[in-house]
């Protein structure tokens, strides 16, 4: 069984824990409790030839880390980062671009998936403008809702596929 480490990064309150809990436990908690430190989850992605079955070790980090997370021991051996922003809070989307640049610099060649979360809060999520760094060709970007579950599983399955494709 292949196990690979995936980091969830993003500003405080963007829904990292909600996405992880939706993925792993298929539930959404309305009571917001900030993460202190890290929570680690295991998620099995079934095989989809040629990609083998893969265990994702999902690290749900404390949003207070900011850029300092890249220098933390938590990041060791990370194969991918899912960088999350809150569609209803534009500053968190700008932060996504910064975190993406930081991750690429520290961990070149690893997968980065950008997740724009909380689509359920916006009447027309596709119309919300995103920073240009997130809309460049070749960028992996998904709009998700941890509340409804939309696209949540796809984000992690895409990460597993990219990890396998890159031979990480």
């Amino acid at each position, binding site marked *: 069984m292949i*196990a690979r*480490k995936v980091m969830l990064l993003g500003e*405080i*309150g963007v829904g990292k824990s909600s996405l992880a809990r939706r*993925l*792993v*436990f*298929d539930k959404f908690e309305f009571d*917001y*409790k*900030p*993460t*202190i*430190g*890290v*929570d*680690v*989850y*295991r*998620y*099995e992605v*079934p095989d989809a030839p040629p990609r083998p079955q893969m265990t994702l*070790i999902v*690290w*749900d980090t*404390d949003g*207070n880390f900011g850029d300092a997370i890249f220098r933390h*021991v*938590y990041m*060791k*051996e*990370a194969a991918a980062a899912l960088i999350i922003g809150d569609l209803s*809070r*534009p*500053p968190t989307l700008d932060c996504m671009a910064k975190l993406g640049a930081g991750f690429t610099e520290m961990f070149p060649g690893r997968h980065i998936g950008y997740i724009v979360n909380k689509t359920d809060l916006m009447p027309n999520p596709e119309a919300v403008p995103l920073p240009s760094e997130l809309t460049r060709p070749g960028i992996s970007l998904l709009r998700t809702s941890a509340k409804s579950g939309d696209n949540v599983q796809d984000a992690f399955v895409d990460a597993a596929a990219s990890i396998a494709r890159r031979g990480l």
Partner: protein
Amino acid sequence: MSKMPSSTPPPPLPAVGSETTRANRFPPSAGGSPRDLAAALAEASNLVAGFGAFGLVWLDRDLNATRRYGRLVDFVELAAPITKSVLALIGLEDEIRALPQKKGRILELPAVGVGTPDGDTQRLNFSIFWQPGQGAFLVLIYRVASQTELEMELSRQIRARLMAEAATTAKSKELARANADLASFAEIISHDLKAPVRHMRNLARELAADRSVPIDRELRDRLTEIEFQAKRMSHMLTALLDYSSLGRKYEAIKEIDSQALIDSIVQSLPQSGIDVCRSGDWPKLSTLATPLDLVLRNLIDNALKHHDRPDGAITVHCSDQPQSLVITIADDGPGIDAKHHQTVFLPFRTLHQSTVHQGAGMGLAMVKKTVEAAGGSISLVSDPTQTRGTKFVVQWPKCILT
């Protein structure tokens, strides 16, 4: 799809003092401490461990858990890789194995969430170090103190931060919209009003020149006055248009020689009996060249224009400070009464009749706006009740705000 919690569900908690937490599982003291002291320490440790405040796990070189101590670590499966019980250690195996190479090195993993038997998550700190005497890795695991209080405080801070962020965003948008409205309003009125004013001026001029219309001297004088006032209004509108666009134009930062700049400004001044002297240190610097030129030119021009004698002196001095240039423009003119020190910087304010001095009264307003847009400041010193003269002091930053 199998979905698993963050750690293997721990076995039921043993009672305090049961086999898993007995003192005989505590490692023997490495030093030569008196027997009673070692016993007391072991007893104290037992008590603390019994409350579930900390626990110890020993790992062999293959990172299998071989022993554990304290009810807090009952979730750790023995004779199995530690990564099976603590997912957070997956990927850190090489880091742990490298610990013996660096004496005294400790691998710290703060505030890792670990599942409890009742399905909740407890937050634990992990400190891993190498024990050469035992040939084993020791994992010290202890609770994050006052977890609930920490969470409550963090929640409070985050709520405050989110609310402040939302308020700032809303205010920024509102301010940007208001600024845009104001700027476009100023542009529209100044631009659109210029056409009818020009038309009025032309009509007055044409009427005065029309020989087919009988015009007496008084009417001709009034038409001339209309033309003059229309021309004046046109100048004011042009100045307003320039003023409204200040600070919004993209200005390039260039490498300039401020000595050459002030020399060129002084050389371009009209000949008069008023001497303009330069003094101080005028360095080379990277700055907004055109705005600095505008500021210096307007201040010197202002001093010349409002001088009340045919001869006099204006001194332009520059002091090269670490963070800014401090430029003073001092004249020996009539001075500015204290009650006008603030109003002279307002648009369309002039202390003289418009017929005496040409200009729309926008010079100092544009200077102030330009200096502040660059991140600097301007002030004036003058007390005509004591002595003649006015001194403007400009702090022009070397590091330009963009």
